[in-house]
Structure formats: structure tokens, C-alpha cells
């Protein structure tokens, strides 16, 4: 049993807002749902599967009601919550449901407003008494990974900075990007230290906004007008300190989700023309590239240096919308936007200055939670038909 080729992404929408003081979180969900439904050219009454994560106010049942989905038709609901990669997992689960005949048109929504509202609370696990006092945040949890990666492999701040430099080269062409200025390695190194060894420019932006997907059957996708993009491989995984045995923060759960996705797709990293890689921090990208097999473990620093991730310049164009480092990071959850830009690349709808030529195979990969503590990862491999 495989989901290879059994589900297509027929509709996408990214909210243009990065700052939404005049909107509610539910409203943003509705706006992205409407956008994706219109992009696909279907009716909201056709939707028979709904997927959302922890950013959806109240969870699935208030959202289904608020969005006015057709409850006589809706027959598959999934509110898997794995932080920023939830939506990449949703994409895989939607494909599974479609392949099993459990739904035929799935809607996935993400939206929220960390800049102008409140963030949804994160529930505490069994570790709470033994960890919560120590103040793990995204900055320092990823800082701990970077510190150990530098220690074990000689990775440098200059190498990490190249990731931000590449993102900024792409963001200059995105009219919606929060940070449109092209920056240099020196700019990154001269930005204030936030949590060693990560500088301010090693960190992503905080933005309001959201995005949505329509996932459907091959038959329905072929009846619609948009260029056809299908899912051919998918993987998901989790990693944590696991009792503190053999702790190794230099790799992520991507070492498991990636190979699962590539195996299902029947391709290798060398075949990928465009990569959407979750960039909560520069170190996130470097570790994911290694974990996914674009280079060997420990060689990520060399791989990303000298513009290798810049479209038209390097071998692996990444995050051509400017990514979380420069464009947006709705609700501090970057998985959705990773899928959206991959689909735009495969459709040929990316900005002409960053559009990858003959882009027929792309990867969208994300992590959720804290890489330095416990997290999930999910990998989707997408193909233009």
C-alpha cells in the first residue's frame, strides 16, 4: 500500500498579510480556506475532509462549524498536532484518506496572529516538572543544537549565515516578504547575539497570516484547471531525549521521515530540483539538509556556503519565497508555507527571478516542536504531472 500518486494538491492559498490587527484568527482561517477553494475552482460544499492543528481556535469542531463546511458531506476529520510540521503531516494523512476512499476533497488550514493576538498555549507533558523551569525557548533550544553541531563538526557561524543570505536573495522578489533587503554574511554575524551561537539574523520572523491547501483525487484534479501537482512520497517521525540515553542533538527526526518519503517516491535527493526546508533558524535548515541526505552529516556547513541555496546560482534552490527567515512564519508554524512555495515552483508560478527551470520534483520538509528538546518531522515529495 502506498500513497504514491494517489493524491493531488489542487488548490493553494497564502494569506498576504503579515500583520493583522484588524482580523480574528478564525477569520484568517476562513480567508485562507476561501482562497484555496477558489484557487482549486471547487465549491466549499464539495469539501468532505478537514484538517487543522493547534492554531485552529477550539480545534476541528468549532472550525468546521465556523467555516460553514457541508456537514452532510464532511466525512473525514484530522486534527493531528505536531507544531510547525502539522500541515505536512496533514498532507500525508489526507493522501492516505483519499487513497482509502475516506474522502475526496480535503481542506487543510493554518492561520493565526502571534504579532497581534495571543498564541495558543502548548500543553505540558510528563516532563513538565523536570524541564519547564529551565526556560527552553525556540531560540535557545535551537542554539543548543547549533552549539553541539559546531563542536562535533566544525560548523561555523559564517556557514550558517549563508542560509540567511540565500533566503534574503529570494525575498527581495516577494512583495509580501517582511524582510526584503539582501543581506551579507557580515550583516548576519554583526547582528546581535540572541542565544549563543545564534544571531538575530539566524532567526526567522514572527508574523501573522496563514495558508491553506486543497488535496484531492487524481480524477478530480485532472478535471480542474490548475497545473497538476501530486504527492509521490511522504514520511513522518518524532524524536526526543528518550530517558537521556545517547543524547545527540546534531540530527533530527528528519533522518527517519526523509528516507521514508524518498523510498516511497522511488527517487533520491539528487533528483530534487527545488527544496522547501523549514527555516525557523539557520541551523534548522543545515541539519535538515544533512538529515534528508542532500549532503553527509557534518558537511552541511560546506554545502550551504557560497550561495549554493540561491536559485539560479547554487545547486539546490531553497525557500524561493524568502521562507521563514525573510518572508513569513504564520503562527510560528512554517510547514504550510513550505508546501505552498513547493507547489508554486512545480506549477511554474514562482516569481520569474527565482523560478527553477523544468521544476518537476520538489521536496517540502518541516519540523515541529523544539529541535533541541522533542520534536516531529515530516517530509513530502511532490511531482509535477
Amino acid at each position, binding site marked *: 500500500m502506498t500513497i504514491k500518486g494517489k493524491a493531488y494538491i489542487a488548490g493553494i492559498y497564502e494569506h498576504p498579510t503579515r500583520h493583522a490587527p484588524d482580523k480574528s484568527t478564525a477569520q484568517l482561517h476562513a480567508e485562507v480556506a476561501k482562497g484555496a477553494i477558489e484557487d482549486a475552482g471547487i465549491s466549499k460544499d464539495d469539501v468532505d475532509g478537514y484538517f487543522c492543528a493547534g492554531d485552529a481556535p477550539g480545534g476541528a469542531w468549532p472550525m468546521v462549524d465556523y467555516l460553514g463546511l457541508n456537514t452532510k458531506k464532511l466525512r473525514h476529520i484530522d486534527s493531528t498536532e505536531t507544531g510547525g510540521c502539522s500541515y505536512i503531516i496533514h498532507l500525508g494523512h489526507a493522501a492516505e484518506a483519499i487513497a482509502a476512499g475516506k474522502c475526496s476533497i480535503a481542506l487543510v488550514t493554518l492561520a493565526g496572529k502571534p504579532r497581534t493576538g495571543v498564541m495558543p498555549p502548548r500543553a505540558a507533558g510528563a516532563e513538565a516538572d523536570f524541564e519547564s523551569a529551565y*526556560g527552553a525557548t525556540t531560540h535557545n533550544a535551537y542554539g543548543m543544537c547549533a552549539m553541539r553541531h559546531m563542536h562535533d563538526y566544525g560548523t561555523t557561524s559564517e556557514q550558517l549565515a549563508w542560509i540567511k543570505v540565500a533566503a534574503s536573495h529570494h525575498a527581495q522578489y516577494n512583495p509580501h516578504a517582511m524582510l526584503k533587503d539582501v543581506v551579507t554574511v557580515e550583516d548576519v554575524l554583526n547582528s546581535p547575539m540572541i542565544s*549563543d551561537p545564534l544571531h538575530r539574523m539566524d532567526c526567522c520572523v514572527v508574523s501573522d497570516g496563514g495558508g491553506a491547501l486543497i488535496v484531492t483525487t487524481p480524477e478530480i484534479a485532472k478535471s480542474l484547471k490548475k497545473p497538476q501537482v501530486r504527492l509521490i512520497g511522504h514520511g513522518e517521525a518524532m524524536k526526543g531525549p528518550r*530517558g537521556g540515553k545517547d543524547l545527540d542533538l546534531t540530527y533530527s527526526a528528519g533522518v527517519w521521515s526523509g528516507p521514508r518519503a524518498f523510498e516511497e517516491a522511488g527517487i533520491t535527493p539528487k533528483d530534487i530540483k527545488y527544496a522547501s526546508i523549514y527555516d525557523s533558524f539557520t541551523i534548522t535548515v543545515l541539519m535538515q539538509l544533512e538529515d534528508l541526505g542532500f549532503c553527509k552529516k557534518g558537511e552541511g556547513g560546506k554545502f550551504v556556503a557560497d550561495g549554493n541555496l540561491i536559485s539560479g546560482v547554487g545547486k539546490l534552490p531553497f525557500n524561493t519565497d524568502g521562507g521563514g527567515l525573510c518572508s513569513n512564519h504564520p503562527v510560528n508554524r512554517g510547514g504550510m508555507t513550505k508546501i505552498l512555495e513547493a507547489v508554486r515552483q512545480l506549477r511554474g508560478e514562482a516569481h520569474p527571478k527565482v523560478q527553477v527551470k523544468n521544476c518537476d520534483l520538489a521536496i517540502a520538509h518541516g519540523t515541529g516542536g523544539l529541535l533541541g528538546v522533542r520534536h516531529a518531522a515530516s517530509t513530502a515529495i511532490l511531482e509535477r504531472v
Partner: protein
Amino acid sequence: MSEAKKYPTPVTNPETAAFWDAAKEGRFMIKRCTACGEAHYFPRSICPFCYSDKTVWEQASGEGTIYTYSLMRKSPTGPYAIGYVTLKEGPSVQTNFVDCDLEKLKIGQKVKVVFKATDGAPLPFFTMA
């Protein structure tokens, strides 16, 4: 700044109460499985490695080395350093480094446990040995 920091009181539960009772006496406990011999942290009743329920409390030396750390330069309560310490007994534990020059932290540095008061049981932290 760090003296003024107020730490949250452990909630505790039946599975972990013995840890916090020992902490009140200045003892740092880990759990060890008598079936597979592995030690783990934070404490569970079922061994996370072999799923045996034959886990026992063991007083740890409180000594270890820094596996990694990150110095958070700003926060509402001032700078702080978070990290993991690999205990002499094996498991790595998440902690903050306290009562030492945070600029001098480095991977491999030897550290030892210190307890800090809360409104309930004290919390374990680490400082340079």
C-alpha cells in the same frame, strides 16, 4: 538578577514524588532498571528502554559534563544558560547553569548539581565543578 529569579514549584505526582522528597534532603535521584541495567532521566515507573516495571530509585553522584548549552542573552529575568548535562551515571538531563560565569561555559566542562528553593520541593540545577 538571577538571585531574584523565582522558580516554579514542582507539581509532583505519585510517579515522581520520591524524586522531590529526596530533593528536599539535597539528594539528586535517577531511576535505574534492574531488568536491563539502564539508568534514565526524568524518572518513569516503566523503563523507557525495555518496558520492564522493575525500575528502582538510585542516588546519583550529581556530577557530569556539559553536553551542550546556549546562553540566552536577554529575558525578563535577565540572561540565563540552558543546556544538557551528561551525568556520570549515563543519562543526559536538561538544566540551567547557575552560580558561575556564564561566559565561561564550554562543552565538556565538569559540573555538579545544586538545588534552588521554590515554594515547594527544590529544583536541581548545575554549576561548574
